Structures are given as structure tokens and as C-alpha cells.
């Protein structure tokens, strides 16, 4: 694989197909898009297979000095590899899920393929400005996807999505310009090892935070998400929840933490506070939703809050847990949106009350929906459990209180998800039209079964997913160790002594004061 520009090829395939889709008729565009995304998925598998676990930190590195001021520099570590895999895995499923799209199919497919290019580009970019270009460019296709193929309030949602995320990002650009001016390089790996003045870090961190917090999204700047999700077509929601939200988390893990460790430690409590509020508040909001998509959108905000607390726990468990939550949430929330899409295509409503007793007439559908519901709650054996457990274990070392509050998110998560499932799948078949819906078709099997398999795989044997990232996360942990805040738990691996309990109390008191 040496020297073969596989990452550029993965960017090129959907790009070419996307341009071709603009000129193709509906049927051809569908097939073309499916073929291109499958080719990219195959390339992704090849990428994973030839990724040398435990080898060099940055692999498949490509560099071409094509531009003034920045480079065409690509390369991935384990973290980026996993997120790229998530993107290329979800894309063919999104194309399959778009069968109900009938207007302007060529443009629709082109927008999705362009989206895929940009997502892979974000995760593979090794140049600060190249990253920014990919990161921002995603706004255009997503704006069009929501605005053209969305539901009732699509216009409002598309504006909100665009302007919110743009405002967040432009400040990051200024911070990037300053960093490059200071460090004299645009190379991300070099910048990750560069020590910025802690006083400057504060401002830089805030500027990056403005962008990533909106993308993530964190409370209170999450309000674009429910609107965008509800109005986007099914596949748009899948991509939004599955991959785009991960850009925020990826940003924290790639930029905020390694480049500004001191500022990250300084603001960890801000992140914790916002995340705690998010977990509780958005879970409660999710509990009272009547719209299925809105419910899942709010649950996404709550899950992303678990990601942020894990990231700012400054330890290996927290970081690994956050990565697994991101991957798991990408699969599970994507699958849940697909489940909503399946019944939306039949009845054209997302109103929870219009359904009921679907397990009677749609048993296979009910089975898949149950699996993803459980995975969203974090039942052991599913991917959700692994990630949430690790994140909370990580945060527990820093603060028992934060861990306590965030754990309520799991309980509330169980409440709103089970409540949703009960209303949709169990109970009486109170609506005749809902009772007459046929069970899932072969196409829908093809969409849901692979995700179900991946969810179970990640739940039963997460090592496959953790192994490529382990070394990168250890390196990140070592990088931020110097700034790691003192936790209140102070777990030790030594033998328990007589006054262990007393000592821990002291530490706890110290940790609170700190």
C-alpha cells in the first residue's frame, strides 16, 4: 500500500460520481450513487485492513504542495480511521434509504456524494486550513439537502443550521490564522506537539469551542439540531446524526485537547457544567416529545454530552469511551432515524400517537427497532453500553458528582426510549392505517441488518474498534497529562490500607475545593 494515494482516491470516487449524477436521470443517478458509495466502502475496508495497528501514528500520508499557504496533506491515525469507516459505512445505507425521494434525484445524490467527500476530507486532512475548508464546505450540501428535500419548515431549519454553524466556525478561522502565524506551520501533527502560551490558549480554546460546541451540539447552542433533524429527509438525518455531529467531537479530540491542554483543563468545568445540564434537560425534553424525530434529536444532544464529559476527563477511559460513544451513536441514532423513516414512508407522519401496536403487523420491524432502542439506552451487549460505561468510568475519576449527574442521563434515556417504543410498537393497534402497514421490505432489511450487526459486534467485541485507536489515545493522554485536573476519586492500584476511606474523603474535599 506504500505510496498509493488511497485517501485521495476515496475522495475522488464520490466526487466524480457526484458530478456525473448532476447530469444523469433519476434511475441512473441512484445506481451511480449506490455504486460509488459501495466502492468507497470497499476502499474503506481495504484501508482498515491495511492499517498497521501499533505502527506509525500517521499512516497513508500524502502531501502535495498544491496551494499557497497550505498543503494538500492527508493522513490518518486510528481515531480518524474509525470515523472514516463510520462515514463510508453509513453512506450506502443512506442512498438506499432515499428511495422515497422523487424530486430532483440527480441533484440529491450529488449533494450526498459531495457530503461524503467532505466528511472523509475532514477526518483525513492533515493541514489546518485544508481541514477548515472541508469542515466548512459541508454547510453547502447540507443546506441544500435540508432546504430542498426537507419537510414543512425546511427553510427556517436550513437557515438556522447554516448561520449557526457558520458563526461558530468563522471565529475558529481567526484562531487558526493566529496559530499558524505563531507556530509557522499549518501541519496538524506539528501543531499538536506545539506548546502555545497558556494565556493565548484560553482565547484559542474559546474560538475553537465556539465552532465545535455548535457542531457537537452542546447545550445551549443545540437548538439548530432538532429543527434541522426534523426537517431533513431521512437520509439527511442519518448523515447529520451519524457523522456530522462527530465532527465536533473529532475537533475536540484532534485540536482542543492536544493543542491547548492547559486551556482545556481550565475550561473542563465549563464543559462539565454544560454537559450536565444537557444530559438532564434534553433528556427531559425528549420525554415529552410527540414527534419521533425530535425525540431522537434531543436524545442525540444528551448522548453527545456524555461524549464531551468523557473527552474532558483527561484519562484513557474517558477518551476511549467518548470515541466508542461517538461510533455507537453514529450507528444507533442513524438506525433509529432509519426506523422512523421506514414508517414515515408508509404513513407520512412522525406523530407518535398515529402509530401503535406495530409489533403485531410489523414483527421484524419491531425487532430491529427494539434492538436499536436498547442500544440507545446502553444495554450490555450493545455498542451503547461499552461507550457509556467507559466514559462514565473515566469521568468518575475526575468527579463523582459529574458522573452521578451524567448517569441519570442513562436512566432518563431508558425512560424516553422505552416510552417511545411502547407507544409505537406495543399496545393496541388504534389506527387502522397504521395497522395495515406491511413489514419491512428487502431494501429495508439491507439497510437495517448491517447496522444491527455492527451494533452487536461493537457491543460484544469492542476490541476490534478500540485496537486501532489505543495508541493514539494513549499518546493524547500522555500529551494532556501535564494539565490533567486533580480528580476527587484518585483511584489507586495499590493494596487497600486501613485508613483508605479516610484518605479518600480528604482527597474528595480537596478535589471539590480545587
Amino acid at each position, binding site marked *: 500500500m506504500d505510496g498509493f494515494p488511497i485517501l485521495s482516491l476515496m475522495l475522488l470516487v464520490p466526487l466524480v460520481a457526484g458530478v456525473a449524477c448532476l447530469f444523469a436521470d433519476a434511475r441512473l443517478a441512484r445506481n451511480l450513487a449506490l455504486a460509488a458509495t459501495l466502492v468507497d466502502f470497499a476502499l474503506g475496508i481495504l484501508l482498515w485492513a491495511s492499517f498497521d495497528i501499533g505502527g506509525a501514528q500517521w499512516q497513508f500520508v500524502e502531501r502535495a504542495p498544491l496551494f499557497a499557504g497550505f498543503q494538500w496533506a492527508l493522513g490518518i491515525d486510528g481515531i480518524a480511521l474509525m470515523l472514516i469507516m463510520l462515514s463510508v459505512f453509513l453512506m450506502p445505507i443512506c442512498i438506499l434509504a432515499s428511495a422515497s425521494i422523487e424530486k430532483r434525484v440527480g441533484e440529491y445524490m450529488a449533494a450526498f456524494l459531495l457530503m461524503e467527500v467532505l466528511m472523509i476530507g475532514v477526518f483525513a486532512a492533515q493541514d489546518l486550513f485544508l481541514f477548515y*475548508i*472541508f469542515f466548512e464546505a459541508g454547510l453547502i450540501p447540507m443546506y*441544500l439537502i435540508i432546504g430542498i428535500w426537507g419537510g414543512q419548515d425546511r*427553510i427556517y431549519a*436550513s437557515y438556522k443550521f447554516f448561520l449557526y454553524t457558520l458563526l461558530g466556525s*468563522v471565529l475558529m478561522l481567526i484562531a487558526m490564522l493566529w496559530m499558524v*502565524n505563531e507556530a509557522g506551520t499549518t501541519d496538524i501533527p506539528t501543531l499538536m506537539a506545539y506548546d502555545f502560551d497558556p494565556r493565548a490558549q484560553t482565547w484559542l480554546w474559546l474560538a475553537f469551542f465556539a465552532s465545535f460546541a455548535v457542531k457537537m451540539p452542546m447545550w445551549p447552542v443545540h437548538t439548530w439540531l432538532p429543527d434541522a433533524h426534523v426537517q431533513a429527509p431521512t437520509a439527511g438525518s442519518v448523515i447529520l446524526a451519524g457523522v456530522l455531529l462527530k465532527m465536533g467531537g473529532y475537533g475536540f479530540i484532534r485540536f482542543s485537547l492536544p493543542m491547548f491542554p492547559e486551556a482545556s483543563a481550565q475550561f473542563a468545568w465549563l464543559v462539565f457544567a454544560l454537559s450536565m445540564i444537557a444530559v438532564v434537560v434534553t433528556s427531559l425534553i425528549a420525554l415529552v416529545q410527540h414527534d419521533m424525530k425530535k425525540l431522537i434529536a434531543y436524545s442525540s444532544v444528551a448522548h453527545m454530552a456524555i461524549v464531551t464529559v468523557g473527552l474532558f476527563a483527561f484519562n484513557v477511559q474517558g477518551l476511549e469511551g467518548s470515541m466508542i460513544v461517538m461510533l455507537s451513536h453514529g450507528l444507533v441514532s442513524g438506525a433509529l432515524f432509519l426506523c422512523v423513516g421506514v414508517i414515515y414512508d408508509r404513513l407520512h407522519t412522525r406523530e407518535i400517537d398515529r402509530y401503535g401496536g406495530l409489533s403485531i403487523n410489523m414483527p421484524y420491524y419491531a425487532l430491529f427497532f427494539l434492538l436499536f432502542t436498547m442500544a440507545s439506552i446502553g444495554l450490555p451487549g450493545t455498542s451503547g453500553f461499552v461507550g457509556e460505561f467507559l466514559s462514565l468510568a473515566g469521568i468518575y475519576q475526575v468527579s463523582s458528582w459529574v458522573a452521578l449527574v451524567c448517569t441519570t442521563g442513562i436512566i432518563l434515556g431508558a425512560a424516553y426510549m422505552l416510552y417511545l417504543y411502547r407507544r409505537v410498537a406495543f399496545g393496541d393497534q388504534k389506527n387502522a392505517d397504521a395497522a395495515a402497514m406491511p413489514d419491512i421490505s428487502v431494501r429495508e432489511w439491507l439497510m437495517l441488518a448491517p447496522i444491527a450487526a455492527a451494533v452487536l459486534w461493537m457491543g460484544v467485541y469492542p476490541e476490534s474498534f478500540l485496537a486501532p485507536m489505543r495508541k493514539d489515545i494513549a499518546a493524547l493522554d500522555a500529551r494532556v497529562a501535564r494539565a490533567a485536573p486533580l480528580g476527587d476519586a484518585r483511584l489507586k492500584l495499590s493494596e487497600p490500607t486501613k485508613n483508605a476511606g479516610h484518605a479518600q474523603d480528604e482527597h474528595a474535599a480537596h478535589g471539590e475545593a480545587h
Partner: protein
Amino acid sequence: MDFTASLALIAPEILLSVSGLVLLLAGAWMGDGASRLVSYAAVAVLAVCAFMVAPALCAGAMGPDTVAFGGQFRADAFASFAKLLIYAAGGAALLVAPAFFERHGAMRAEYPVLVLFAVLGMGLMVSAGDLLTLYIGLELNSLSAYVLAAFLRTDERSAEAGLKYFVLGALASGILLFGMSLTYGFTGTTTFEGIRTALSGGLSTGALFGVIFMLAGLAFKIAAVPFHMWTPDVYEGAPTPVTTFFATAPKVAAVGLTMRVAMDAFGTQESAWQQVIIFAALASIVVGALGAIGQVNIKRLLAYSSINNVGFILIGLAAATQAGASAMLVYLSIYVAMSVGGFVAVLMLKDADGEAVEAIADIAGLSRTQPLLALCLAAVMFGLAGIPPLFGFWGKFVVFQAAVQADMIALAAIGIAASVIGAFYYLKIVKIMYFDEPANKVHGKSDWIHWALLIVSAVFISPLGYLLTRWLGSLADKAAAALLFAA
């Protein structure tokens, strides 16, 4: 420097004036029937001139060899860069015009001749090394421009635009002249070099007034806030090919002239004009963005957009560094391409009878009736908004980079945050073209020249443009170096 060398340096200007006169005679003898031919001849003249000035840019010409007539005129790399942009914009304005004016039965041979004289004036402006050259160039350009604005004599709006432009332009010239006379009075010289030397010791209050008045006059010409009021009316009223011209070439010339005046003549007194420029930059960005939101006419909207863009260009000037000057030139190049693309697209919006469609509501659903046109216009809009991966982003990127390098973080942060306001109305156009139901107003077929110009500018502002960044950047660096060397 002997006389022959000076004449050699102004060869493009001589060629422009002679061919302008010859074409005027040709038009007079052959009548308006030959106006298309005269237009193409004028384009050919501009192309020849472009070849004549290009070597100076590529060689990065600067220093005493580029100074003609005892410091009156400078043919350095900076002037060449600006002239190339001006020639390109002038050529575009000539190419799109015949199809437009012929439908109104108003195509006359004066049009290409006036454009040539305006271009000549602009060439003098960017080459000025003396207040007198500056003023002659400026007036030659302005007088041609006033006539061009009123070129559709039968159209009330056009006549009104011409009159407004004339009155306000004359006022601006007066202010500029007043500033020049103060500057002359307090420095005792009209050459930029002399002014620079005279001011290097310090700035007296009188000279400060001179600086401020000159900048105010120039702000009129580049349509920077608070001297922008004429822009929407003139842009809307003037015939669209003329608006294409106004939005591009004179902008380049006036910005180039402002750069010369600020960084060369007043180059030692940066602190005196920097605050003025910072204010004008931020005010232009904000007013341009807010003013555009309520517009229903697409030409007016683009006028506010040009005010907005001038604000971004001025951020490069506020940095007052070589990087800032280079960034301004890069921005100008991209801006010219975006403006040409935008106005040519507007020219191509025609209803079934071939009448121009200018109301924004009438282009609803354009993406379904004219997908390629809508795509190009959307690219222009996203480019003007500065959203990557379009090339418009690069212009903003370099000016903000220059500001950050000059340690003006607050200016950069405020400016870029205000650019989000601007994004709103660009998005509105895209929304109307792509999200709304078709209004089915735009039907007309367009000339192949329009298509060719539109495609060329669309390709330039597409992500492919980034491949040009190294080349464009090195040329702009040479030009900026020449500007500061003279200083």
C-alpha cells in the same frame, strides 16, 4: 530618465488613447452599424495592452527604471497587476454589451470608445506617482463613466443614474481636490515621493486634514461607507453591462489608487489613516450586509454586496503591511471574477420576450428551469459569502491572514463575525433559486459570449481556483513589493 524611455513606459496608455481616437473616427464614419466591430476591435486593443504590461508584472518591475516623466507616472509591477485586472474587466464589459444594447436599439459606437477612455483613465490612476496624474486619471475615468451610466438615453432610470453619479462624483472630486490642495499646501509638493519625505518628520494638523479629505474623496470612488449612498441607485439604474463595468474595473482602479496614496504618499503616517480605514472597513461590511437584506432588485443587492466586499478589501489596507497589500490584490482578482460572473448571470436572466428580469422574486425556482445558470449564480453567491470550498473564501482568507499577522486580531474577529450577516442574503438568493417553486419567468436564450464569460468566471471561482493560489499569490507579492519599494 530621458524622454524616450518615459514614452516606452507609457506605451500601453499611448496605444489606448490612439486607438480610442481611431475607433471614435471609425464609429463616426461607419455609423452605428459597425459598433459590434468597434467593440471587438476595442477588446483586441485591450488584449494587446495586457500583453504589453504583463512582462513588468512577471519580472516584478520596481525602482527608478519604472518611473516616467520625473515621477509623474510609474509602470511598476503593482500598476501592471491592477491594469491587467482593469483590462480584463473592461474586456468583459465590452463583450457582454452588444447583445444587450442591440435589443434596445441603443448600441452605438461610443460605448466601446468610452470604455477605452475610462480604462485609460484607470490605468493612469493606478500608475500615478503624483497628485496631478492621479487627478487627471480619475477625472478621465469619471467623465467617461458618467456618460456610460446614462447610456440608455430613453430609459429614465439610466438617465437618473447618470445624473446622480455625476452630481455625487463631482462632489467627491471636489472633496478630493480640497484634500489634495491642503496636502500640497502643507507639504509644498505634489509628488508622492515628496509628500512622503515632507511628512516623515511628523504630521501637522493641516496635512492631517488633507489626508482625511483625500481619503474621503477616495472612499466615494470605492463606495466605502459612509460615502456609499450613490452605489445602489447607480448600479440599479445603469444598463447592466455598464454596471458590470462599474462593479469591477473602477473598483480595482480606485482601490489601487487608495493603496498608492495611503501606503506610498502617506506611508510614514500610518497611524493617521489606519483608524479611518478600520472604521470604513467595518462600517462597509456591516452596512453592506444589512442594507442588502431588504432588497428586492438583484442589481441593488449586488450593489450592497460590492459595498460589503470593499469592506473586506479595506481590512487588508488597515493592516498596512506588504502582506496586506498583496492580500488586497488577491481579493480584487477574485472579486472581479465573482462580480463579472454575477452580473453576466443577471444579464442572462431574461423573460420570454427577452426583457431583463431583475426582481429577485422572479428568479424563484431557477434551478429547475435553467439549472446551469442557477448553479453558476449559486456559486457566485456562495463565493461572495466566502464559504469554502469556493474560491471566494480565499480572498477573505488572505486579507484576514494579513490582519492577524499585523496583530489586529480584534479587527479580524469583528470583521469575520460580521461576514455571517452577509451570508444571510446570499443564502436568500440560493434559497429562492433552489427551494422555491418555479416562477417560470426566466426563459430567454442567451448569447454564447455570455455563456462563455459565465463559465470562465464560474470555473475560476470554483474550487479549481485554489490551484491558482500559488501563482496568484506570487504575482500579488511582486506587485505589493513594488508598491512598497516605491514608498
